[in-house]
């Protein structure tokens, strides 16, 4: 479980996060939603340690991240898998080398064991016969799947996904969402997803945190989000013509 305790962050005079407190539960898909500029990405970067909060603390199973020494932080980071918005695959490495990268860095597995693990996770994300291809030779959806495979290759306890559906068509986006949800349940990991895609919210939102102007405005799940009386959340949920008509 990840606990966010009164996290605040400002860049100069601009306050981006104000006293945000919430928790992300193990074995569930925890979503951070909100409009652009609401502080979603900054909150996620505070969680994975790319930004230090000005105040407050992020705790991973009782381990306060920002108070840890650098060596311990790096140990904790090895338990994390992160799916970046653009995939962040290493473009000089093949698909196989990308997925094998965490195994090369942090395990003493033999090459055969590593290759077996790589093939297993690639198969898990429904990718076969792509091992020798470079990131520039595969589609956006495949890139996301390779990035997921890399993120889970070293059996992480925590999986962070920053806008996993951005730039994908609705069908591929649904496949990616489903995949993340299945992996979360299968491996009982704590998954945190940063999104503003309402399809994702309604499909896999087991624990939803709505950020509004840097504050935690609402928490709930995919069933309760459609019936909330919160005006800001309603404005966000029913912001498209399609959702307004459905309502």
């Amino acid at each position: 479980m990840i606990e966010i305790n009164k996290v605040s962050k400002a860049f100069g005079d601009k306050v981006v996060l104000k006293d945000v407190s919430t928790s992300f539960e193990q074995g569930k898909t925890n979503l951070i939603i909100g409009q652009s500029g609401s502080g979603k990405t900054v909150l996620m970067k505070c969680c994975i340690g790319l930004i230090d909060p000005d105040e407050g603390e992020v705790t991973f199973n009782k381990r306060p991240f920002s108070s840890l020494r650098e060596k311990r932080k790096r140990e904790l980071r090895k338990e994390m898998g992160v799916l970046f918005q653009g995939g962040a695959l290493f473009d000089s490495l093949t698909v196989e080398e990308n997925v094998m990268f965490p195994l090369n860095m942090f395990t003493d597995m033999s090459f055969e064991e590593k290759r077996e693990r790589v093939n297993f996770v690639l198969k898990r994300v429904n990718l076969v016969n792509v091992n020798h291809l470079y990131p520039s030779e595969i589609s956006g959806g495949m890139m996301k799947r390779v990035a997921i495979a890399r993120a889970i290759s070293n059996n992480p306890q925590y999986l962070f996904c920053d806008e996993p559906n951005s730039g994908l068509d609705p069908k591929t986006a649904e496949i990616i969402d489903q995949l993340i949800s299945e992996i979360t349940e299968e491996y009982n990991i704590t998954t945190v997803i940063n999104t503003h895609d309402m399809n994702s919210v309604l499909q896999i939102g087991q624990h939803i945190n709505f950020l509004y102007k840097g504050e935690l405005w609402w928490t709930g799940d995919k069933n309760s989000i459609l019936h909330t009386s919160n005006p800001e959340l309603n404005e966000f949920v029913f912001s498209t013509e399609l959702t307004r008509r459905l309502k």
Partner: protein
Amino acid sequence: MMSLKALHTIGEYLLLMIETFKRPDKGPVFRRQLLVEIVGLGVDSIGLVVLMSVFTGAIVALQTAYNIDSPFIPLSMVGYTTRQLMVLEFSPTIISIILAGKVGSRIASEIGTMRVTEQIDALRVMGVNPANFLILPKITASMLFNPVLIVISMAVGIWGGWAACVVTGMVSSVDFVEGLRGWFEPFTVTYALIKTLVFAFIITSVAGYLGYTVNGGSVEVGRNSTRAVVISSVLIIGFDLLLTQLLLV
């Protein structure tokens, strides 16, 4: 204001170097990276270095021969001048400036692109020290292989001078070789190699720093790549003066 910014930049560069020179996470991975960089930064530059050196050696020899008017100056001076110029300045300094253009811009743009496409963030959140993983193999590769390049440059440059003299018939092979072998001070080669090591460090560390600290998008990557070449070249000339004063005078 300017001096504060310069101090901030120097401080940031030094902190990055401290991160860079930490023990690599995994020895075999580092060695593999080192080999890749030796090929990419060193072996791939051999062709350019040979081409530049042969022509410069030839030009230096022909210019010297053309400018010797006095019958009191022996033609063997052409061989001597070519050797001295290649060993003392052209090979270590000018080739290093050329490498700053080729290798420096490559390093800055490669690392800069990795920064803007979140690949460096990906390394960091995996628990890898990105500065150590990306910059240390490049610095080590250049410091190991640039002396080889410079020795090649000296050899083929002198050969170019000899070939130009013999082909044009301006200086005989005997005269050229006599000058080449005369008044040789072995320390000049040591001096050239010390300079090469310092310049290799400057090229790779400055380019690594400027790539690593890119903030923005493709425009900034391009801008920092250019800055890497300009700053490295200026530093090479500055350190050339300093090292010449320290080692030769």
